[in-house]
């Protein structure tokens, strides 16, 4: 079968300012030589947003208890790198693309700052506000928070989001200490480093202590399920915080598991009510459900746009935002609905103008598998270095269905099934579990739907669910004549495969198999081993 190839599209508009982005890196450096020059208008806009981020950080540090919090928890030091993270994600972006990126990321930063503030206030070691602590329900970082959609006066608080998940986005080396702690305690080095790092934080006693209770979920994999046991051992036995384990069925596409899942949701809600004294509020639930549906509608439209020649919200812009809105927010924060509307407006505007985000679009790729957290801006690199457009990634291919959002007796019953569905179809697990079809067959359906000519397959080397389909991915791509680039990585641990190690896999494939030259040669080899 002939190899599929997309016709190269050349951007009629010249990219203003810098075009050799690799030149901005200082060898071995943590930060770059200078800020990116994007032309007068975009540079000024970007600078004002940078000031906004500094203001958010400054406000956080203005509270004495937060300073204490900053010095108590080792992972807090990573937050010094927030502005650099945004710079990495906005590399090469201009006009609407730049604005869309800031719209999303600045909001995420504000949301994480609020979360840190919550943790510092309730934490027994710092703020120690006991009354405030009682309105917090702890959840895992990778957990769908649908069961909190009916508690307007409770806080759904994840300790793992700021300690592990965000930290490693900010600083690629952030989790190495905690991974080592877990391994010193006896965990082998061949498990997924995400739950491993979370377990490490708990073993190291480096998680804030607060909350009326906790709801744990088996989230994405065997590692996550078992990692919960390490955390609950400390939570329940030492901190005295009761834990509810919410099991989400793995074969989530089957009808005969749904009643089980719905019943677990009912029990989780009852558990929260018992331990917080707060009652489930249906009005608030359906209000949140409307916002969930609006986010779903927007995401569906963005993905539809990405099926055309002029994709707009894609790559890092799509991936990071989806992870935040879908699970952590799940309709509970109205500001994200406002952001969705603004994003939609910007995307439509750019689409009408047939805007392109890079000088050339050479390949249209579906990015599949679990992306590396220490190199999440790899998607921006793909576009800038090789002209590969990451149309969508696996973690953004989530629920497309609407849930019941009007308050009727039938819908109140349906709501348990909707929450169960959202929980079962969390990001990642909706593909890594549920039978091979959702992981294997759906990929090749997306390739057709999005008119893609390439697959970038992240192989998170210790993700057993993905590794278990390795040979079948290869076989199917070969049968269909679709170039498939394996990109191995170790999720939270760049010591195993560095960022350059990740890039090399693409560089070698593009040069040897595709026989192409890079769009921006300065990005092909970067000495960013130490970079934030």
């Amino acid at each position: 079968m002939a190899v599929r190839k997309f016709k190269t599209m050349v951007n009629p508009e010249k990219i203003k300012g810098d075009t050799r982005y690799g030149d901005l890196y200082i060898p071995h450096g943590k930060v770059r030589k200078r800020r990116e020059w994007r032309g007068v208008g975009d540079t000024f806009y970007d600078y004002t947003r940078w000031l906004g981020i500094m203001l958010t950080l400054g406000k956080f540090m203005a509270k004495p208890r937060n300073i204490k919090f900053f010095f108590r928890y080792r992972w807090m030091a990573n937050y010094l790198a927030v502005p650099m993270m945004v710079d990495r994600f906005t590399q090469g972006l201009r006009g609407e693309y730049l604005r869309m990126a800031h719209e999303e990321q600045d909001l995420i930063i504000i949301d994480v700052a609020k979360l840190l503030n919550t943790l510092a206030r309730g934490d027994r070691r710092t703020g120690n506000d006991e009354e405030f602590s009682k309105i917090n329900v702890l959840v895992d970082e990778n957990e769908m928070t649908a069961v909190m959609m009916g508690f307007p006066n409770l806080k759904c608080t994840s300790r793992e989001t700021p300690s592990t998940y965000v930290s490693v986005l900010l600083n690629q080396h952030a989790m190495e200490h905690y991974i080592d702690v877990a391994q010193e305690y006896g965990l082998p080095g061949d498990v997924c480093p995400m739950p491993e790092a979370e377990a490490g934080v708990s073993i190291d006693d480096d998680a804030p202590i607060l909350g009326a209770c906790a709801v744990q979920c088996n989230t994405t994999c065997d590692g996550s399920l078992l990692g919960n046991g390490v955390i609950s051992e400390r939570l329940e036995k030492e901190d005295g915080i009761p834990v509810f384990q919410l099991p989400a069925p793995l074969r989530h596409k089957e009808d005969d598991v749904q009643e089980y899942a719905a019943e677990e949701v009912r029990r989780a809600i009852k558990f929260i009510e018992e331990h917080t004294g707060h009652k489930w509020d249906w009005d608030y639930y359906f209000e949140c459900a409307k916002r969930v549906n609006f986010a779903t509608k927007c995401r569906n439209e963005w993905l539809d746009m990405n099926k055309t020649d002029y994709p707009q919200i894609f790559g890092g812009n799509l991936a990071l935002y989806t992870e935040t809105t879908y699970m952590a927010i799940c309709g509970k924060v109205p500001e994200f609905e406002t952001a969705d509307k603004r994003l939609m407006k910007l995307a439509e505007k750019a689409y009408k103008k047939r805007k392109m985000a890079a000088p050339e679009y050479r390949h249209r790729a579906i990015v599949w598998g679990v992306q590396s957290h220490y190199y999440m801006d790899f998607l921006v690199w793909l576009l800038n270095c090789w002209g590969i457009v990451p149309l969508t990634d696996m973690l953004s291919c989530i629920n497309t269905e609407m849930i019941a959002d009007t308050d009727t007796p039938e819908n109140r019953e349906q709501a348990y099934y909707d929450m169960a569905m959202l929980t079962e179809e969390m990001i990642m697990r909706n593909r890594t579990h549920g039978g091979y079809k959702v992981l294997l067959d759906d990929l090749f359906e997306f390739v057709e739907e999005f008119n893609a000519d390439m697959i970038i397959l992240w192989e998170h080397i210790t993700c057993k669910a993905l590794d278990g389909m390795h040979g079948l991915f290869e076989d199917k791509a070969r049968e269909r004549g679709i170039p498939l680039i394996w990109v191995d990585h170790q999720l939270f641990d760049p010591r195993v495969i560095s960022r350059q190690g990740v890039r090399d896999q693409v560089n070698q494939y593009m040069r040897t198999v595709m026989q192409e030259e890079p769009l921006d040669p300065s990005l092909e080899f970067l000495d960013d081993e130490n970079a934030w």
Partner: protein
Amino acid sequence: MKDLKHLIYFEDLLQEANNELIGQAQKEGMKCIGYMCENVPEPLLNLPGCFSSRLRAPRTGSIDVGTYYLTSFLCEYSRAILERALEGGYNFLDGVITPDGCTMLNRCVENMDVLQAMGKDKKGFFFDYMEIPMKADYNGLNLYVLQCKNHILKPLAENYGIDTSDAAIRKAVDQHNKVCELIRAIGDFRKLDVPTITGYEYSVFCLASYVAPKHLIIDKLEETLEELKTRKPDAKPWFKARVEVVGSEVDDTDFIKLVEESGAFVCCDRFCYGSLPGRDPIYLNDEEDALTQLCGAYMYRGECPRYMDTVTMDGRRSYVDELAKEYKADGIIYQQMKFCDPWAYERMMGSHILRNRYDWPVLAVDRPYTIGSSGQMRTRVQAFLESIDIKKIQKEG
């Protein structure tokens, strides 16, 4: 000690996945259903007209093709099983049932399914997948029962006309109990101060009971039990210490042999394919339906680390402690097959808790699928036995 009469016969049964008794039962017109996880209620695969065989890949050599499909990061058990399936080593099967118990075994069977590794030309052959509860409670039980109905009983009835009535299930449980009672009675000789059976010998009988049709081994197990009643032990115990082996799947009797050759006596087997609690008899009452009782028995005694509720997690560790006391163990070996995620965590937590909370000497090790000649493991076990000795001396002093 004098050799047991049927030991070599049972050892021979373990040399091939397709052992001679499987062919014999199939000639009788019975269907052979393969499975790989302790969470599949075994009696349901042993209803009148069919029998179960828990899949192994004995005498595994190269697992290159399995590694191509599953990568080198999946456990060697899943890779070896897939390799064997692709080589045609399980063509004798009439169906495969797997629970989504652990990701690796699930993926292994999914690969077999997509690659049509077996059953292509076999009428009625099926692959089926089950959801297994993650908490042991009423909701989990409802799920278990429904899953067994839809993914075990239904395909067996529809594809092979197997009787799946309550009476048939009770009959299968009776046969299951017969084997379990024999195996456990044989295993009880391990409790003696000077035991009349070795851990290796016991593991051979126990493992055979998982892979061979049950009705064809009962007579030999009965004879073995009788033989053990009069078997004379060696004048002096041959071991330095008694150990309980705990952890993930062990279907390689050479591992037990290696531990014993290093100077230990494996007095207790708390691992998948072991007898505790895998060979606990299941006693049914007449009031409740058999299927619900059977599923309840499997769920509430489940020692699989995928059970995530605190009560069950704590129960797993206290069960290890109780067994160690019952079988008079001097120490505990927590073993985990390399790359097994569930047991990686359970080994870490279990070994710390057993050591710190229950005060047991614990050796925590990971190991490959087949390990008979590992010098490294031998050294670890020997060092562990020495440490037990030293602790004993310190206590006495």
